[in-house]
């Protein structure tokens, strides 16, 4: 097993990718700390995860003190943090830039950028001291491409790519690796919200159009993303740092 007794901290753990990641790391022998905004969905999600030890923590990742707290509690409970899946994110409202609101932009940046930054700040303090650790940030295809109506999300995920590279460079001498995953649409509840935001009651049509934009003509499964996260966090990826890995059914092959 790749993560026997290793401590894996996952944010956005009640969401589709988060749950799949929790299961995948648990299968590899990891002890888990799972973070999400609300207790109830988190407890619900944790029920499906068969790990030897699970710590559940609630936090609003856009609040620095709450991030500091979930990191501290994880460290107190397990004594260390080996892997950080910096995954919490929101899609925001679907609006063109001409109609975009400051409020929506700030909400999205609060979770997707500040949340990722705060997570890095406090987890990397611990990994730096340990002189070991691996971080996987959840970026997106939207961190590399544009998407009409999703300016806040797209800009926030571009920011994650920049944080990812910089954190990797700053941590390289401490034996801490930092990488990102960049998925296209994943078949999760977030995608259901994006479909609804895009075309309202014609959400089925939105789904067909989104899937057709992927050369493999389907969404990713959350398990496929979790598989990539496990790879990047594992010793198998010991020479990989500062990279973002596309997992997008070929969508990126039509762009830079």
């Amino acid at each position, binding site marked *: 097993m790749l993560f026997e007794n290793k401590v894996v901290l996952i944010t956005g753990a009640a969401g589709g990718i988060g749950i799949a990641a929790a299961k995948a790391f648990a299968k590899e022998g990891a002890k888990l700390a799972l973070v999400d905004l609300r207790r109830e969905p988190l407890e619900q999600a944790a029920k499906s995860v068969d790990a030897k030890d699970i710590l559940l923590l609630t936090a609003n990742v856009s609040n620095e003190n709450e991030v500091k707290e979930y990191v501290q509690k994880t460290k107190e409970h397990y004594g260390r943090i080996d892997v950080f899946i910096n995954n919490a994110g929101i899609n925001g409202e679907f609006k063109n830039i001409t109609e975009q609101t400051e409020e929506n932009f700030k909400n999205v940046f609060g979770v997707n950028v500040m949340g990722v930054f705060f997570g890095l700040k406090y987890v990397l303090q611990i990994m730096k001291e340990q002189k070991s650790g691996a971080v996987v940030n959840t970026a997106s295809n939207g961190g590399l491409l544009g998407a009409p109506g999703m300016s806040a999300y797209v800009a926030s995920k571009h920011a994650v790519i920049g944080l990812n590279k910089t954190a*990797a460079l700053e941590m390289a001498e401490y034996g801490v690796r930092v990488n990102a995953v960049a998925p296209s649409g994943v078949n999760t509840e977030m995608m259901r919200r994006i479909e609804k935001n895009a075309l309202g009651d014609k959400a089925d049509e939105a789904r067909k159009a989104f899937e057709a934009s992927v050369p493999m003509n389907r969404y990713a499964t959350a398990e496929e993303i979790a598989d990539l996260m496990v790879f990047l966090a594992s010793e*198998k990826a010991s020479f*990989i740092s*500062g990279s973002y890995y596309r997992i997008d059914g070929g969508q990126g*092959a039509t762009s830079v």
Partner: protein
Amino acid sequence: MTNLDGKVVIVTGGASGIGLATAKAFLDKGSKVVIGDYNKEAGKKVEEELKAEYANVLFVPVNVAEEKSVENLVSVTVEQFGRLDVIFNNAGIGVQTPTHQLTDEEYKRVIAVNQDGVFYGIKYALREMLKTGGGSIINTSSILGTVGEPTSIPYAASKGAINLMTKSVALEYADRNIRVNAVGPGFIESGLVNKEALGDFYDGLVAKHPIGRLGKPEEIAHAVIFLAENDFVTGTTILVDGGYTAK
């Protein structure tokens, strides 16, 4: 997730370095592996060594710069093992010559092996994968497919070409269950690249990798296995470069 147990895999440039480490990684997964290499002596020796441990391994001499030779590699594979599921187009060479002194022969030789060789590998692998309804093609690119490097134009040009062949072929066959990806290593320790052989130049190479060392062939092999197993990754070059391109 694709289970690699029993899958038939070709690895070109398989008698040494990244190729050999990857051939072993596939054998450890239970795959049947055909090692193609230009160096017959090394290939025979590797075949002998591996046969002591693994039942399904075969060496076939190949010059990937010649279309007929690659066609033969694929057809011998299919004769022997019945099908082709994965090809790792890995054979490659480099030169380090100032561009104003680079000869036409040197330039064309690198392009022929690195770029034409990958095209031939893709072409004949596709023909088999279309018959069986799918497969995975993985090409060895380099950080120099993405970033530049002095005195390396045919190498960098060929690796840039590999990145775009990878994208184009991935798009072309995405609807037929054939995935096409590349792995982009940083500088890797090998028979030719080590402190003893290169001295100060080696230290300079290490300094370019934020991680503070060069990569190992096994670290590239892990990435190739990942690409062969994960079913949603296609059309991409994954970098395994110790942070080289994050700077």
